[in-house]
């Protein structure tokens, strides 16, 4: 104990310790017995190991997918800057890399990315400036990708367009034990599904700055085109993808589907039929219904999973919790359904009635197809048609 601390107050420390211990024991009630240890997921060498469900590991892919859904909208992400970057002198924490081979892999990729990146101010097509006070207050330990200008609605194939994406990087607030230069990451962007064009080469991003990234894109006939940004840190990466136009033909892998019926009466009829066949969420086994957090009550509905499967085993069925929060853009009362895509098999409860202001958690089962990420699509059918959003389910 802290016998060298002159201000150490044993009585106070004991009181707090007792309360914390009691609280943790209460939170873990019923879990005292160790579950069987899963040797099949833990044997082998020191390389990347297959794991079962790993909670909260999906933000990178989920951010990319969700961003693709929000064309011209915003995606805020965290940068996971709790670790020294490769550009910082001094030893890395000794306990980290030996304990997690996955993180070592990410750290190696990060070091390679840093070696190939330049300072943002030296990169043509990138403008850098200090973060505004209001953004700094909003995005502590996080960031924000936006595409300020409108995407061309009907781009002319062969014509070159300029696209600007803004990236705000908030300050890293966990200063304790870290260097002031902590938090350097590497940002890179690439065009997808485009005839030609380019984005600036990789550059170093630092907390407390705003970056404007200019890309040039020439569209292919019938293709939407997209631009994907990756922000790599020592723990992995986060990403954001922006659709660049409304395609003349459906994209090969749409992450959002909007299908307003050309005939309002037909849409209303479909809605009425769906509603008649959909019970309340509370009556559907495997669905829980809770009030939605206030900050999620506006805008589009948001769907995601609270865990991502890493390296799923072939043929194994995994339990997954899928979460959907209708937004104010959704009808007040819609029929919610979940469907899987790019998986071997999958099942979720539903359909059921979903309301704005609520959050629904669905207990689902999914068997993955080797080498594919698998997706879940949430569809909200309302009186004016159906809207859907999709999320990636695993890291293949």
């Amino acid at each position, binding site marked *: 104990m802290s016998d060298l601390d002159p201000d150490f107050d044993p009585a106070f420390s004991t009181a*707090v310790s007792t309360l914390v211990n009691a609280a943790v024991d209460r939170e873990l009630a019923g879990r005292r017995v160790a579950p069987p*240890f899963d040797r099949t997921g833990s044997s082998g060498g020191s390389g990347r190991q297959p794991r079962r469900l790993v909670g909260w590991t999906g933000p990178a892919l989920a951010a990319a997918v969700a961003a693709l859904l929000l064309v011209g909208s915003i995606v805020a992400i965290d940068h996971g800057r709790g670790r020294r970057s490769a550009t910082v002198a001094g030893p890395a924490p000794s306990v980290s890399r030996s304990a997690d081979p996955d993180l070592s892999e990410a750290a190696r990729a990060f070091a390679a990315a840093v070696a190939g990146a330049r300072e943002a101010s030296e990169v043509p097509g990138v403008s850098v400036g200090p973060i505004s006070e209001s953004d700094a207050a909003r995005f502590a330990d*996080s960031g924000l990708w936006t595409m300020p200008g409108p995407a061309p609605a009907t781009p002319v194939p062969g014509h070159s367009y300029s696209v600007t994406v803004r990236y705000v990087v908030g300050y890293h607030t966990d200063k*304790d034990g870290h260097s002031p230069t902590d938090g350097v990451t590497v940002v890179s962007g690439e065009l997808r599904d485009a005839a030609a064009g380019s984005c600036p080469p990789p550059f170093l991003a630092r907390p407390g700055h705003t970056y404007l990234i200019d890309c040039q894109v020439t569209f292919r006939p019938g293709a939407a085109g997209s631009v994907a940004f990756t922000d790599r840190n020592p723990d992995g990466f986060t990403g954001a993808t922006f659709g660049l136009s409304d395609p003349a033909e459906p994209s090969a892998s749409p992450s959002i589907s909007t299908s307003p019926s050309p005939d309002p009466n037909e849409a209303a009829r479909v809605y009425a039929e769906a509603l008649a066949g959909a019970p309340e969420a509370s009556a559907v086994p495997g669905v829980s219904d809770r009030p939605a*957090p206030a900050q999620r009550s506006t805008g589009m509905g948001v769907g995601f999973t609270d865990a991502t499967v890493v390296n799923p085993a072939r043929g194994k069925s995994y339990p997954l919790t899928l979460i959907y929060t209708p937004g104010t853009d959704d009808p007040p009362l819609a029929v919610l359904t979940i469907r899987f895509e790019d998986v071997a098999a999958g099942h979720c409860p539903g359909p059921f009635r979903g309301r704005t202001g609520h959050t629904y958690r669905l207990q689902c089962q999914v068997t993955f197809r080797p080498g594919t990420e698998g997706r879940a699509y949430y569809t909200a059918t309302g009186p004016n048609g159906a809207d859907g959003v999709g999320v990636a389910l695993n890291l293949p």
Partner: protein
Amino acid sequence: MDTTAVRLAADRQPDGERGFDALYRAQWWPMLRLAQGLVDDVGSAEDVVQDAFAGLYRHRDRAGLTADPDAAARYLRASVVNGARSALRRRRTVRTWLGSLRPVDQHAPAADEPALRTAGQELARRALAALPARQREVLTLRFLADLSDTEIAEATGMSAGNVRSAASRGMATLRATLRTDDLGGLS
């Protein structure tokens, strides 16, 4: 069975399997408590502990880890601390851009629990959780694992001086946050 017999029996096990099993049974609960204290989420805590034991299992033949319970415990503690840091970063990512959808009543008290005691526990947990990361880690390791400053330094990768400094600042913040009367009346 005396100590010698135990050692002989363990020596017959390939790859220290039996030693690992014994460690797993003995250390699961303390590591789960530690992880829960660090991440405040049972599912994440179980994942962190599972990963820590998976790492130990992969390295069970190195440096006699499973034959030395103290070394294994040190390894596990460091792995849990490291895993908790990663879990918190991942969770923060999701929370930042999607908002928290965690059940608000996840740790709601049972109906038959004394309300005041539960309130005191919640106060202490929240005050601890609100501390900066390193202070929270240091005090969690002190409170839940009863570690010395040197052991905390080893588990967190910090120097002993930084551990003492973080502990002192953390306790000062807790003292300012929590009223002694409340703690005395509720502990």
